[in-house]
């Protein structure tokens, strides 16, 4: 397996990222992410899978003032990369995913996928919502089949793929169940299978494991890492849990509190498979957390200020 020493985490240190596109770590195919790959110079980097180019978003609040939610975010994600975005609640990290998914237009800037501008939802990028949005009127199998049906894929192929992806998430036995009959972790896996079945290049995951208990979450981390390795998808994973981000990501992007900006980027070069209890994971998380703390304090201050104003 890995030829690297245990403490392979090289503190490259937080990379200044604001305003710039820096793809400092490129892992290539996820299967090979366990071996060291030298940092490539920017010029050699292939067309990024997803790149955000000066994204800003502002909206009018009910009281009529304009609020800047996202401020000039530039970021690029390499094909097959597992990118985690962390930030305090209210920093607009979920909104960022909605923009990439094309479910909401940005105020300025561009979202590029494979170098082409995004102007609406597309099955090349699939979002897994925090509240999942599984269809309760369909069975597990029909839920997984749904996206393929919309793509007019033949019945035989749908059948085969539904089975394949249900097996991938270990839910073959529950094909004919309705979603309300499943546990939280199982529903999470249905959502994952449903998204994978349309074979998107990019998976956008919005705090998918936030509502699960710790054991189930650990299990799903393992499964997600395995599935990511097997399918080679690009994943952008939003979470408020720094340990989770370090456990899963090739790179962790830290966002500031309102307006959301990229504060720092942390390449994570720990060997895979990782575990959330590992000391290396904990140490790296601690470093990121100290940066995040500042933002959390800002968000708390803002919350208390709101309360005082009331």
């Amino acid at each position, binding site marked *: 397996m890995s030829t690297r020493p245990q403490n392979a985490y090289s503190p490259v240190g937080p990379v200044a990222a604001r305003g710039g596109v820096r793809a400092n770590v490129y892992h290539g195919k996820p299967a090979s992410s366990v071996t060291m790959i030298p940092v490539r110079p920017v010029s050699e980097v292939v067309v990024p899978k997803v790149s955000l180019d000066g994204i800003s978003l502002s909206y009018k609040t009910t009281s009529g003032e304009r609020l800047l939610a996202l401020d000039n975010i530039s970021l690029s994600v390499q094909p097959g990369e597992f990118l985690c975005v962390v930030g305090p609640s209210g920093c607009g990290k979920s909104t960022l995913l909605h923009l990439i*998914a094309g*479910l909401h237009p940005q105020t300025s800037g561009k979202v590029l996928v494979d170098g082409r501008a995004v102007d609406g*939802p*597309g*099955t090349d990028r*699939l*979002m897994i*919502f925090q*509240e*999942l*949005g*599984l*269809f*309760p*009127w369909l069975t597990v199998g029909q839920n997984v089949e*749904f*996206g393929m*049906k*919309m*793509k007019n894929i033949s019945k035989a192929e749908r059948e085969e793929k539904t089975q394949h992806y249900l097996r991938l998430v270990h839910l073959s036995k529950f094909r004919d169940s*309705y*979603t*309300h*009959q499943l546990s939280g972790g199982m529903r999470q896996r249905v959502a994952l299978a*449903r998204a994978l079945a*349309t074979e998107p290049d990019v998976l956008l995951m919005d705090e998918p494991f936030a509502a699960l208990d710790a054991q189930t979450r650990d299990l799903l981390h393992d499964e997600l890492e395995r599935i990511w390795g097997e399918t080679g998808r690009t994943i952008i994973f939003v979470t408020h849990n720094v340990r989770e981000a370090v456990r899963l990501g090739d790179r962790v992007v830290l966002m500031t509190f309102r307006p959301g900006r990229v504060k720092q980027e942390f390449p994570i070069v720990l060997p895979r498979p990782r575990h959330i209890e590992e000391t290396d994971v904990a140490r790296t998380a601690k470093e990121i957390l100290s940066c995040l703390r500042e933002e959390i304090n800002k968000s708390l201050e803002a919350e208390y200020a709101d309360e005082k104003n009331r």
Partner: protein
Amino acid sequence: MKKIAKQIVFYSALLGIWALLAKLHIWPPYLFPPPWGVALALRDGFGDHSFWIGIAVTMKRMLIGYSLSVVLGMMIGLGVASNKFLEETLGGLLVSLQSLPSICWIPLAVLWFGLTEKAILFVVLMGSLLSVTIAMEDGRKQMPKIYGMAGRNLGARGFRLFWSVLLPASLPFILNGMKQGWAFAWRSLIQAEMIFLSLGLGQLLMMGRDLNDMSQVIAVMILIIILGYLVDGLVFRTLEHRLQEKWGLAPA
């Protein structure tokens, strides 16, 4: 079991009181027929097929009129729910129109369509269209937004988004309105048939009055109650039940 026993006792008592009152001859039988008189009228009505024909004609009109109002109501309701301008203008008009009893449409229908089938269907349509529309609008608004987003995200667009996602997602919220729409349509139809006098249960009712045949009047009234109850109790209750089962909602 206990509930059924109670019901048997209740209805037997009701029939008993009715029979007793009839037996006392306080009113002449042509004004207050005994239960067995009504039973005979039911037997004769079904025997000479006039009741069967009445039921068939009425149910056919009901199906056509109601289907029309569901389709139209869906379109208008969804339009109103998804467009702020329509909501603020047409939405208000719809609510105010609902206070108009459907029988008020009869004079208009007669002038526009004459004493025809079209006029009857028009009255049924106007009777239920509004409640279906309003139910659709409410259902669309109550439906959690996540389903629409998830559907769009999975590549559903336009009509397919509506048909495979928005419609099934809002079903639990619109079913009650559809049920109410059916009840309104049923009332409007019987009223219209009593005035237009062209077959159907409403006409049978009026025929009983014209012939001074109180037994037939009550027999047809019983038929109308049973039919209405059957559709409500069997069709809609079953739908509701299956929906709750699928969605995992606790039976209300």
